[in-house]
Protein backbone atom coordinates (compact mmCIF):
# COMPACT_ATOMS: atom_id res chain seq x y z
CA UNK A 1 0.00 0.00 0.00
CA UNK A 2 1.12 3.52 -0.76
CA UNK A 3 0.60 6.67 1.32
CA UNK A 4 -1.52 9.53 -0.03
CA UNK A 5 0.52 12.36 -1.54
CA UNK A 6 2.02 14.96 0.83
CA UNK A 7 4.49 17.83 0.79
CA UNK A 8 7.78 16.96 2.38
CA UNK A 9 10.11 19.18 4.37
CA UNK A 10 13.35 18.19 6.10
CA UNK A 11 14.50 21.20 8.13
CA UNK A 12 17.91 21.29 9.83
CA UNK A 13 16.99 22.98 13.12
CA UNK A 14 14.26 22.80 15.74
CA UNK A 15 13.41 26.46 15.04
CA UNK A 16 12.83 25.73 11.33
CA UNK A 17 10.83 22.61 12.16
CA UNK A 18 8.55 24.55 14.54
CA UNK A 19 8.04 27.22 11.87
CA UNK A 20 7.15 24.51 9.31
CA UNK A 21 4.64 23.02 11.76
CA UNK A 22 3.07 26.41 12.54
CA UNK A 23 2.77 27.27 8.86
CA UNK A 24 1.33 23.87 7.94
CA UNK A 25 -1.43 23.89 10.51
CA UNK A 26 -3.41 20.87 11.60
CA UNK A 27 -2.88 18.74 8.46
CA UNK A 28 0.83 18.48 9.24
CA UNK A 29 2.57 15.42 10.67
CA UNK A 30 6.00 15.11 12.26
CA UNK A 31 8.16 12.24 10.98
CA UNK A 32 10.63 10.65 13.40
CA UNK A 33 11.92 7.22 12.43
CA UNK A 34 8.64 6.45 10.67
CA UNK A 35 8.23 2.98 12.16
CA UNK A 36 4.73 3.77 13.40
CA UNK A 37 3.87 6.69 11.15
CA UNK A 38 4.64 4.91 7.86
CA UNK A 39 2.33 1.95 8.55
CA UNK A 40 -0.37 4.51 9.42
CA UNK A 41 0.19 6.47 6.21
CA UNK A 42 0.37 3.29 4.12
CA UNK A 43 -2.94 2.07 5.48
CA UNK A 44 -4.27 5.62 4.97
CA UNK A 45 -5.46 5.84 8.55
CA UNK A 46 -4.05 9.34 8.25
CA UNK A 47 -3.35 11.45 5.17
CA UNK A 48 -1.48 14.62 6.17
CA UNK A 49 -0.89 17.36 3.59
CA UNK A 50 2.57 18.07 4.91
CA UNK A 51 5.20 15.88 6.55
CA UNK A 52 8.02 17.50 8.53
CA UNK A 53 10.94 15.05 8.80
CA UNK A 54 13.26 15.58 11.79
CA UNK A 55 16.10 13.43 10.43
CA UNK A 56 18.45 16.30 9.58
CA UNK A 57 18.24 17.97 12.99
CA UNK A 58 21.50 16.98 14.71
CA UNK A 59 20.60 18.67 18.02
CA UNK A 60 17.79 16.11 18.50
CA UNK A 61 20.11 13.12 18.36
CA UNK A 62 22.50 11.68 20.91
CA UNK A 63 22.96 10.63 24.53
CA UNK A 64 24.82 12.80 27.01
CA UNK A 65 25.38 13.10 30.76
CA UNK A 66 24.29 16.29 32.51
CA UNK A 67 25.17 16.11 36.21
CA UNK A 68 22.94 13.50 37.79
CA UNK A 69 20.83 13.12 34.64
CA UNK A 70 21.11 11.33 31.30
CA UNK A 71 19.73 13.38 28.44
CA UNK A 72 18.59 11.42 25.39
CA UNK A 73 17.64 13.37 22.26
CA UNK A 74 14.18 12.58 20.88
CA UNK A 75 15.60 11.38 17.54
CA UNK A 76 18.02 8.92 19.17
CA UNK A 77 17.40 5.50 17.70
CA UNK A 78 16.53 2.39 19.68
CA UNK A 79 19.72 0.66 18.48
CA UNK A 80 21.88 3.52 19.81
CA UNK A 81 20.16 3.27 23.21
CA UNK A 82 20.66 -0.50 23.44
CA UNK A 83 24.38 -0.22 22.70
CA UNK A 84 25.06 2.85 24.86
CA UNK A 85 27.38 2.11 27.81
CA UNK A 86 26.09 5.13 29.79
CA UNK A 87 22.50 3.97 29.42
CA UNK A 88 23.53 0.48 30.63
CA UNK A 89 25.26 2.07 33.60
CA UNK A 90 22.71 4.68 34.69
CA UNK A 91 19.37 3.57 33.25
CA UNK A 92 19.74 -0.16 32.51
CA UNK A 93 15.96 -0.66 32.65
CA UNK A 94 15.52 1.50 29.54
CA UNK A 95 18.08 -0.53 27.57
CA UNK A 96 16.48 -3.79 28.75
CA UNK A 97 13.04 -2.64 27.56
CA UNK A 98 14.21 -1.15 24.26
CA UNK A 99 15.98 -4.40 23.43
CA UNK A 100 12.53 -6.04 23.50
CA UNK A 101 10.97 -3.64 20.97
CA UNK A 102 10.07 -5.22 17.62
CA UNK A 103 13.04 -6.58 15.65
CA UNK A 104 16.57 -5.38 14.74
CA UNK A 105 15.42 -3.66 11.53
CA UNK A 106 12.78 -1.60 13.34
CA UNK A 107 15.25 -0.85 16.17
CA UNK A 108 17.67 0.59 13.60
CA UNK A 109 15.05 3.19 12.60
CA UNK A 110 12.62 3.79 15.47
CA UNK A 111 13.36 6.63 17.90
CA UNK A 112 12.64 7.10 21.60
CA UNK A 113 10.82 10.36 20.86
CA UNK A 114 8.59 8.83 18.20
CA UNK A 115 7.74 5.92 20.47
CA UNK A 116 6.77 8.21 23.35
CA UNK A 117 4.68 10.62 21.27
CA UNK A 118 2.98 7.73 19.45
CA UNK A 119 1.93 6.56 22.96
CA UNK A 120 0.60 3.14 22.05
CA UNK A 121 -0.23 1.56 25.44
CA UNK A 122 1.30 -1.71 24.16
CA UNK A 123 4.58 0.07 23.37
CA UNK A 124 7.60 -0.90 25.44
CA UNK A 125 9.14 2.53 26.10
CA UNK A 126 6.47 4.16 28.28
CA UNK A 127 6.68 1.84 31.29
CA UNK A 128 10.47 2.17 31.81
CA UNK A 129 10.27 5.94 31.29
CA UNK A 130 7.59 6.08 34.01
CA UNK A 131 9.50 3.77 36.34
CA UNK A 132 12.71 5.80 35.91
CA UNK A 133 10.75 9.01 36.67
CA UNK A 134 12.06 10.73 33.57
CA UNK A 135 11.16 14.25 32.49
CA UNK A 136 10.10 15.02 28.95
CA UNK A 137 11.34 18.20 27.28
CA UNK A 138 8.83 19.78 24.88
CA UNK A 139 9.39 22.75 22.57
CA UNK A 140 6.70 24.78 20.86
CA UNK A 141 6.05 28.25 19.52
CA UNK A 142 5.82 29.51 23.12
CA UNK A 143 9.25 28.13 24.11
CA UNK A 144 10.40 25.10 26.06
CA UNK A 145 8.76 23.34 28.98
CA UNK A 146 9.38 20.14 30.87
CA UNK A 147 6.71 17.63 31.85
CA UNK A 148 7.24 14.85 34.42
CA UNK A 149 6.58 11.39 33.01
CA UNK A 150 3.54 10.84 35.27
CA UNK A 151 1.82 13.78 33.53
CA UNK A 152 3.06 13.00 30.01
CA UNK A 153 0.66 10.23 28.96
CA UNK A 154 -2.85 11.65 28.68
CA UNK A 155 -4.86 8.88 27.00
CA UNK A 156 -4.72 6.34 24.18
CA UNK A 157 -2.27 7.78 21.57
CA UNK A 158 -2.40 11.15 23.37
CA UNK A 159 0.41 12.90 25.25
CA UNK A 160 1.33 16.30 26.65
CA UNK A 161 2.92 17.13 23.28
CA UNK A 162 0.40 19.48 21.67
CA UNK A 163 -0.17 20.41 18.04
CA UNK A 164 2.71 22.42 16.65
CA UNK A 165 5.04 21.15 19.39
CA UNK A 166 7.99 18.77 19.37
CA UNK A 167 9.33 16.41 21.97
CA UNK A 168 13.03 17.28 22.00
CA UNK A 169 14.59 15.20 24.77
CA UNK A 170 14.10 12.71 27.58
CA UNK A 171 15.85 13.55 30.87
CA UNK A 172 16.40 10.51 33.08
CA UNK A 173 17.69 10.79 36.65
CA UNK A 174 20.67 8.46 36.93
CA UNK A 175 19.75 5.18 38.59
CA UNK A 176 23.33 4.05 39.02
CA UNK A 177 23.58 0.82 40.99
CA UNK A 178 19.85 0.04 40.84
CA UNK A 179 18.87 -3.45 39.76
CA UNK A 180 16.19 -3.78 37.12
CA UNK A 181 14.40 -5.99 34.63
CA UNK A 182 11.81 -5.70 31.84
CA UNK A 183 9.61 -8.77 31.54
CA UNK A 184 7.57 -8.89 28.33
CA UNK A 185 4.91 -11.44 27.42
CA UNK A 186 4.23 -12.09 23.72
CA UNK A 187 3.28 -15.05 21.56
CA UNK A 188 5.42 -14.02 18.60
CA UNK A 189 8.86 -12.70 19.52
CA UNK A 190 8.85 -9.46 17.53
CA UNK A 191 5.30 -8.41 18.36
CA UNK A 192 3.81 -5.79 20.66
CA UNK A 193 3.48 -6.60 24.35
CA UNK A 194 0.35 -8.42 25.48
CA UNK A 195 1.47 -7.27 28.93
CA UNK A 196 4.94 -6.26 30.14
CA UNK A 197 6.37 -5.10 33.44
CA UNK A 198 9.30 -2.75 34.10
CA UNK A 199 10.94 -3.00 37.52
CA UNK A 200 13.76 -0.94 39.05
CA UNK A 201 14.86 -1.53 42.66
CA UNK A 202 17.39 0.14 44.90
CA UNK A 203 18.73 -2.38 47.39
CA UNK A 204 20.67 -1.17 50.44
CA UNK A 205 22.13 -3.62 52.97
CA UNK A 206 19.75 -6.35 51.88
CA UNK A 207 16.65 -4.18 52.09
CA UNK A 208 14.61 -2.74 49.21
CA UNK A 209 15.11 0.97 49.81
CA UNK A 210 13.15 2.11 46.75
CA UNK A 211 10.94 0.35 44.20
CA UNK A 212 9.54 1.56 40.88
CA UNK A 213 7.23 -0.55 38.77
CA UNK A 214 5.81 0.38 35.35
CA UNK A 215 3.12 -1.56 33.48
CA UNK A 216 2.74 -1.92 29.69
CA UNK A 217 -0.71 -2.48 28.14
CA UNK A 218 -2.68 -2.54 31.40
CA UNK A 219 -4.81 0.50 30.50
CA UNK A 220 -5.12 3.28 27.94
CA UNK A 221 -1.69 4.60 28.95
CA UNK A 222 1.40 3.05 30.53
CA UNK A 223 0.92 2.96 34.32
CA UNK A 224 2.83 2.89 37.61
CA UNK A 225 1.96 -0.06 39.88
CA UNK A 226 2.00 2.07 43.02
CA UNK A 227 0.56 -0.62 45.30
CA UNK A 228 3.42 -2.98 44.47
CA UNK A 229 5.97 -0.20 44.95
CA UNK A 230 4.61 0.59 48.42
CA UNK A 231 4.46 -3.09 49.35
CA UNK A 232 8.06 -3.70 48.22
CA UNK A 233 9.58 -0.69 49.92
CA UNK A 234 11.35 -1.65 53.15
CA UNK A 235 11.07 -5.39 52.58
CA UNK A 236 14.12 -7.63 52.74
CA UNK A 237 15.37 -8.40 49.23
CA UNK A 238 15.44 -12.08 50.16
CA UNK A 239 11.69 -12.18 50.90
CA UNK A 240 9.34 -9.88 48.99
CA UNK A 241 6.27 -11.64 50.36
CA UNK A 242 3.08 -11.21 48.34
CA UNK A 243 3.91 -7.68 47.16
CA UNK A 244 3.64 -8.65 43.49
CA UNK A 245 0.07 -9.90 43.97
CA UNK A 246 -0.99 -6.25 43.97
CA UNK A 247 0.25 -5.54 40.42
CA UNK A 248 -3.21 -5.26 38.82
CA UNK A 249 -4.71 -2.95 41.47
CA UNK A 250 -6.22 0.16 39.94
CA UNK A 251 -5.65 -0.98 36.35
CA UNK A 252 -8.20 -1.16 33.56
CA UNK A 253 -6.64 -3.50 30.97
CA UNK A 254 -8.09 -3.99 27.48
CA UNK A 255 -9.75 -7.19 26.21
CA UNK A 256 -8.79 -8.29 22.72
CA UNK A 257 -7.87 -11.37 20.69
CA UNK A 258 -4.64 -11.76 22.67
CA UNK A 259 -6.41 -12.00 26.00
CA UNK A 260 -9.25 -10.59 28.07
CA UNK A 261 -8.88 -8.16 30.93
CA UNK A 262 -8.82 -10.89 33.63
CA UNK A 263 -6.08 -12.76 31.83
CA UNK A 264 -4.06 -9.53 31.60
CA UNK A 265 -4.49 -8.93 35.35
CA UNK A 266 -3.19 -12.43 35.96
CA UNK A 267 -0.26 -11.79 33.61
CA UNK A 268 0.57 -8.53 35.39
CA UNK A 269 0.92 -10.37 38.71
CA UNK A 270 2.99 -13.22 37.28
CA UNK A 271 5.24 -10.96 35.20
CA UNK A 272 5.80 -8.57 38.10
CA UNK A 273 6.94 -11.47 40.26
CA UNK A 274 9.27 -12.67 37.51
CA UNK A 275 10.64 -9.17 36.91
CA UNK A 276 11.29 -8.55 40.62
CA UNK A 277 12.90 -11.98 41.06
CA UNK A 278 15.11 -11.52 37.99
CA UNK A 279 16.13 -7.99 39.02
CA UNK A 280 17.08 -9.15 42.51
CA UNK A 281 18.96 -12.11 41.08
CA UNK A 282 21.29 -9.82 39.10
Amino acid at each position, binding site marked *: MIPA*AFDYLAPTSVEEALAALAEGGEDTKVLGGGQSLLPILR*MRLNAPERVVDLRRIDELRGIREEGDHLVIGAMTRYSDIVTSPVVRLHAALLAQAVEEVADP*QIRHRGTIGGALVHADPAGDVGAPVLALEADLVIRGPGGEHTVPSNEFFVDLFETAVGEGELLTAVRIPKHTGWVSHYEKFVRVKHQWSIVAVAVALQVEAGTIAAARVGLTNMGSTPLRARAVETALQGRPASDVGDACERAAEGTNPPSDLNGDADYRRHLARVLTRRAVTTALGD
Partner: protein
Amino acid sequence: MTRVHVTVDGVQYSDDIEPRMLLVHYLREVVGKVGTVIGCDTSNCGACTVHLDGASVKSCNVLAVQADGHEVTTIEGIAVDGELHPMQQAFHEHHALQCGYCTPGMIMQALDLVRENPTPSEEEIRLGLEGNLCRCTGYQNIVKAVAACASTMETSTTARPERSAAR
Protein backbone atom coordinates in the same frame (compact mmCIF):
# COMPACT_ATOMS: atom_id res chain seq x y z
CA MET B 1 8.61 15.94 -6.79
CA THR B 2 11.75 15.92 -4.70
CA ARG B 3 15.26 15.25 -5.93
CA VAL B 4 17.12 12.49 -4.10
CA HIS B 5 20.72 11.35 -4.34
CA VAL B 6 21.12 7.77 -3.19
CA THR B 7 24.00 5.36 -3.58
CA VAL B 8 22.66 1.88 -4.33
CA ASP B 9 25.05 -1.06 -4.42
CA GLY B 10 27.96 1.31 -4.95
CA VAL B 11 26.41 3.32 -7.80
CA GLN B 12 25.20 6.90 -7.30
CA TYR B 13 21.63 7.64 -8.49
CA SER B 14 19.85 11.02 -8.69
CA ASP B 15 16.11 10.96 -9.30
CA ASP B 16 13.04 13.15 -9.02
CA ILE B 17 10.50 11.21 -7.00
CA GLU B 18 7.30 11.77 -5.08
CA PRO B 19 7.99 12.14 -1.34
CA ARG B 20 5.44 9.42 -0.60
CA MET B 21 7.41 6.79 -2.54
CA LEU B 22 8.59 3.92 -0.34
CA LEU B 23 12.26 2.94 -0.49
CA VAL B 24 11.34 -0.56 -1.66
CA HIS B 25 9.40 0.87 -4.62
CA TYR B 26 12.26 3.22 -5.43
CA LEU B 27 14.71 0.31 -5.44
CA ARG B 28 12.51 -1.97 -7.52
CA GLU B 29 10.77 0.42 -9.91
CA VAL B 30 13.18 3.32 -10.34
CA VAL B 31 16.61 1.72 -9.83
CA GLY B 32 15.56 -1.74 -11.04
CA LYS B 33 16.80 -3.75 -8.05
CA VAL B 34 14.02 -6.32 -8.21
CA GLY B 35 16.01 -8.73 -6.03
CA THR B 36 14.49 -6.89 -3.07
CA VAL B 37 10.92 -8.14 -2.69
CA ILE B 38 7.71 -7.20 -0.87
CA GLY B 39 6.11 -9.93 1.23
CA CYS B 40 3.55 -8.14 3.39
CA ASP B 41 1.62 -4.97 4.06
CA THR B 42 2.43 -4.71 7.75
CA SER B 43 6.24 -4.48 7.96
CA ASN B 44 6.29 -7.86 9.69
CA CYS B 45 7.89 -10.25 7.19
CA GLY B 46 11.35 -8.76 6.57
CA ALA B 47 11.48 -9.88 2.91
CA CYS B 48 12.29 -6.30 1.89
CA THR B 49 15.31 -5.97 4.21
CA VAL B 50 18.22 -3.91 2.83
CA HIS B 51 21.11 -2.10 4.50
CA LEU B 52 20.91 1.67 4.94
CA ASP B 53 24.36 3.03 5.82
CA GLY B 54 25.33 -0.49 6.82
CA ALA B 55 22.41 -1.23 9.16
CA SER B 56 19.42 -3.39 8.23
CA VAL B 57 16.03 -1.75 7.64
CA LYS B 58 12.70 -2.86 6.25
CA SER B 59 12.61 -0.92 2.98
CA CYS B 60 8.79 -1.07 2.89
CA ASN B 61 8.81 1.03 6.08
CA VAL B 62 11.22 3.75 4.96
CA LEU B 63 10.48 6.58 2.52
CA ALA B 64 12.92 6.93 -0.37
CA VAL B 65 13.42 10.58 0.65
CA GLN B 66 14.67 9.36 4.05
CA ALA B 67 17.53 7.66 2.17
CA ASP B 68 18.53 10.89 0.43
CA GLY B 69 22.27 11.40 0.84
CA HIS B 70 22.72 7.87 2.17
CA GLU B 71 23.93 4.52 0.98
CA VAL B 72 21.80 1.44 0.34
CA THR B 73 23.02 -2.12 -0.15
CA THR B 74 20.60 -4.68 -1.58
CA ILE B 75 20.87 -8.42 -2.10
CA GLU B 76 22.08 -7.59 -5.64
CA GLY B 77 25.11 -5.75 -4.27
CA ILE B 78 26.81 -8.36 -2.13
CA ALA B 79 28.26 -10.78 -4.69
CA VAL B 80 31.73 -9.69 -5.83
CA ASP B 81 32.71 -10.20 -9.51
CA GLY B 82 30.05 -12.84 -10.01
CA GLU B 83 31.21 -14.82 -6.94
CA LEU B 84 28.42 -15.44 -4.46
CA HIS B 85 28.89 -13.79 -1.08
CA PRO B 86 29.82 -16.41 1.57
CA MET B 87 26.37 -15.97 3.13
CA GLN B 88 24.67 -16.64 -0.23
CA GLN B 89 26.94 -19.65 -0.70
CA ALA B 90 26.07 -20.95 2.77
CA PHE B 91 22.31 -20.64 2.08
CA HIS B 92 22.88 -22.59 -1.14
CA GLU B 93 24.94 -25.33 0.50
CA HIS B 94 22.67 -25.80 3.51
CA HIS B 95 19.41 -25.79 1.53
CA ALA B 96 18.26 -22.75 3.48
CA LEU B 97 15.51 -21.97 1.00
CA GLN B 98 12.57 -23.65 -0.64
CA CYS B 99 10.48 -21.12 -2.58
CA GLY B 100 13.19 -18.49 -1.98
CA TYR B 101 10.85 -15.57 -1.40
CA CYS B 102 12.16 -14.72 2.06
CA THR B 103 15.79 -15.33 1.05
CA PRO B 104 16.91 -11.83 -0.01
CA GLY B 105 15.70 -10.40 3.30
CA MET B 106 16.99 -13.35 5.32
CA ILE B 107 20.47 -12.98 3.85
CA MET B 108 20.59 -9.22 4.36
CA GLN B 109 19.45 -9.59 7.97
CA ALA B 110 21.86 -12.50 8.53
CA LEU B 111 24.70 -10.22 7.38
CA ASP B 112 23.54 -7.57 9.82
CA LEU B 113 23.50 -10.05 12.65
CA VAL B 114 27.02 -11.36 12.02
CA ARG B 115 28.26 -7.78 11.64
CA GLU B 116 27.03 -7.02 15.16
CA ASN B 117 27.96 -10.42 16.58
CA PRO B 118 30.54 -12.38 14.53
CA THR B 119 30.22 -15.51 16.69
CA PRO B 120 26.49 -15.93 17.33
CA SER B 121 25.02 -18.89 19.22
CA GLU B 122 22.03 -20.68 17.74
CA GLU B 123 19.72 -18.71 20.01
CA GLU B 124 21.36 -15.43 19.02
CA ILE B 125 20.87 -16.30 15.35
CA ARG B 126 17.18 -16.98 15.95
CA LEU B 127 16.83 -13.69 17.87
CA GLY B 128 18.69 -11.77 15.17
CA LEU B 129 16.25 -13.11 12.58
CA GLU B 130 13.15 -12.41 14.68
CA GLY B 131 11.88 -9.85 12.15
CA ASN B 132 12.12 -12.20 9.15
CA LEU B 133 9.43 -14.75 8.40
CA CYS B 134 9.80 -17.86 6.23
CA ARG B 135 6.67 -19.75 5.22
CA CYS B 136 8.58 -22.78 3.90
CA THR B 137 11.67 -24.01 5.68
CA GLY B 138 10.85 -24.10 9.37
CA TYR B 139 14.04 -22.05 9.88
CA GLN B 140 16.21 -25.07 10.73
CA ASN B 141 18.42 -24.84 7.65
CA ILE B 142 18.46 -21.05 7.67
CA VAL B 143 19.91 -21.11 11.18
CA LYS B 144 22.43 -23.78 10.11
CA ALA B 145 23.51 -21.73 7.10
CA VAL B 146 24.03 -18.58 9.15
CA ALA B 147 26.01 -20.48 11.80
CA ALA B 148 28.21 -22.13 9.16
CA CYS B 149 28.82 -18.86 7.38
CA ALA B 150 29.59 -16.96 10.58
CA SER B 151 32.32 -19.41 11.46
CA THR B 152 33.96 -19.22 8.01
CA MET B 153 33.47 -15.48 7.64
CA GLU B 154 34.81 -14.33 10.96
CA THR B 155 38.15 -13.18 9.63
CA SER B 156 37.03 -12.33 6.12
CA THR B 157 36.57 -8.69 5.14
CA THR B 158 33.96 -9.51 2.50
CA ALA B 159 31.52 -9.91 5.38
CA ARG B 160 30.88 -6.22 5.36
CA PRO B 161 31.26 -4.81 1.85
CA GLU B 162 28.78 -2.03 2.58
CA ARG B 163 31.10 -0.66 5.24
CA SER B 164 33.94 0.02 2.82
CA ALA B 165 32.48 3.20 1.32
CA ALA B 166 32.22 6.51 3.17
CA ARG B 167 29.11 6.92 5.30
